């Protein structure tokens, strides 16, 4: 019996969003009379940070403090249409829709402020702290709350904006077979070190090292949190999770968390992450979004690491001890491929 170390590498080129009949998302922004802004979305925050990121994007575009912005993702019956939180599309699609809606709301807010200050709206700027003032003359100012209040109680304006971001359906060119299904790609590379027990077939992960290029990290801590957590979802798909580990049929498959395996806190290993920021030309403030790509490179990297360790090429996930052992037996023993 021996433990074999192996190292696997994977690189991915990851498309943001999807191409099934067009990929739109909408956003609506309005202020209440106190100058707080509500962003209405139907895009659900699953814990990945959609609310935080769209709130930042709205505040940045409106020119108001982030504390003055609320995001409501409560109900797809009453909210504006969104394709949904999937395909790693949230930050990119919804963020762009929020920018468009916030721009329109901002222009009405500045018109209202201009009317109160008796100036041209084009001469007004926001300080991001809740004030609007004449460019070069900070003393000629009005708060965003006063401007929004005046809009609604004196001027009869709605300080509001509509936004939609659409990546239209890209048809396949019948002549060339070409299409442009996505406009934005993110990238990642990952190295996984594993140890394989050639007696039990068990694979344990020793360390992960990765680099992600995902546009501008609009909220760096949320990006990091996604990458740390998502990698273990990828690891879980690579090494543990399946609905069909048992024989002879699905009736003998797992029905609970005792049979459907996921990593516990004792299964994790160190993961060093480098984040490279190359702002996307068509992304909201350059953002692409980590999304599903947090998990994706782990799977091929683990499979490659197992091959490197014992010479067994697994082509069906997950990498269960049984598959590893069968592979080792078929090869007449472990065949380490040498250090990488």
């Amino acid at each position: 019996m021996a433990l074999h170390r192996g190292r696997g590498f994977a690189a991915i080129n990851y498309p943001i969003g999807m191409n099934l009949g067009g990929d739109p998302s909408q956003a609506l922004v309005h202020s209440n009379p106190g100058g707080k802004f509500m962003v209405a979305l139907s895009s659900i925050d699953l814990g990945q940070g959609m609310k935080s990121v769209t709130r930042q994007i709205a505040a940045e575009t409106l020119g108001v403090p982030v504390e003055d912005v609320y995001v409501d993702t409560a109900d797809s019956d009453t909210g504006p249409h969104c394709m949904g939180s999937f395909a790693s599309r949230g930050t990119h699609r919804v963020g762009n829709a929020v920018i468009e809606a916030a721009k329109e709301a901002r222009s009405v807010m500045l018109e209202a402020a201009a009317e109160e200050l008796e100036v041209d709206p084009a001469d007004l700027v926001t300080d991001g702290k809740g004030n609007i003032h004449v460019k070069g003359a900070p003393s000629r100012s009005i708060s965003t709350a006063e401007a929004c209040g005046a809009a609604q109680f004196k001027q009869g304006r709605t300080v509001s904006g509509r936004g939609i971001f659409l990546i239209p359906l890209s048809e396949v060119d019948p002549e060339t077979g070409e299409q442009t299904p996505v406009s934005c790609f993110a990238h990642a590379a990952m190295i996984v070190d594993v140890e394989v027990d050639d007696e039990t077939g068990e694979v344990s992960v020793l360390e992960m090292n990765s680099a992600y290029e995902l546009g501008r990290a609009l909220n760096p801590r949320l990006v990091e949190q996604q990458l740390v957590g998502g990698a273990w979802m990828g690891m879980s798909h690579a090494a543990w999770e399946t609905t069909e580990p048992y024989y002879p049929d699905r009736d003998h498959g797992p029905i609970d968390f005792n049979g459907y395996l996921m990593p516990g806190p004792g299964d994790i290993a160190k993961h060093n992450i480098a984040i490279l920021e190359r702002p996307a030309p068509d992304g909201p403030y350059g953002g692409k979004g980590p999304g599903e790509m947090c998990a994706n490179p782990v799977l091929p990297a683990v499979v490659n690491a197992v091959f490197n360790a014992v010479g067994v090429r697994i082509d069906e996930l997950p990498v269960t001890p049984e598959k590893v052992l069968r592979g080792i037996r078929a090869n007449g023993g472990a065949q380490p491929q040498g250090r990488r």
Partner: protein
Amino acid sequence: MARKPLQFHLNGSEKAVFVEDGQNLLDVLRRGVGDLTPKYGCGQGACGTCTVLIDGEPHLSCLTLAETVEGRQITTTAGLAQGADLHPLQKAFMDNFAAQCGYCTPGMLLAAKALLDRNPNPSREDVVEAISGNICRCTGYEPIIDAILEAAKSRGFRQFG
């Protein structure tokens, strides 16, 4: 079905409810007294999100018969903060981004509190052991482990209890 009176202490206040034979503690907490902080996850003791403290010890409330807590002290996540002041564990979870969807968080917090109450200076291995019955899908556990270790180091933990 017979209904029986049950009295216990929930986060320091007395509760008196009627429970049915075989009703579990999680159901009594959520539906009987309206404390929605313990979550229903798997319903069979495998995921840990329904964890509550009974006389300071962590228990899976989905597997605990309600009748067995007569006269005992139950602590849930609702009892951690003191007014507007978050418990040091809650603060450390926030600071370390230890929650994403948040569904495992109540169980994690209480498993962690039980650990720190009996072992104020845990090792990383102690923390892993303490939360090994709690499944988290989003975080990869590392931020949770870091948060618990940070809370243990914080000066506020002792007086908060």
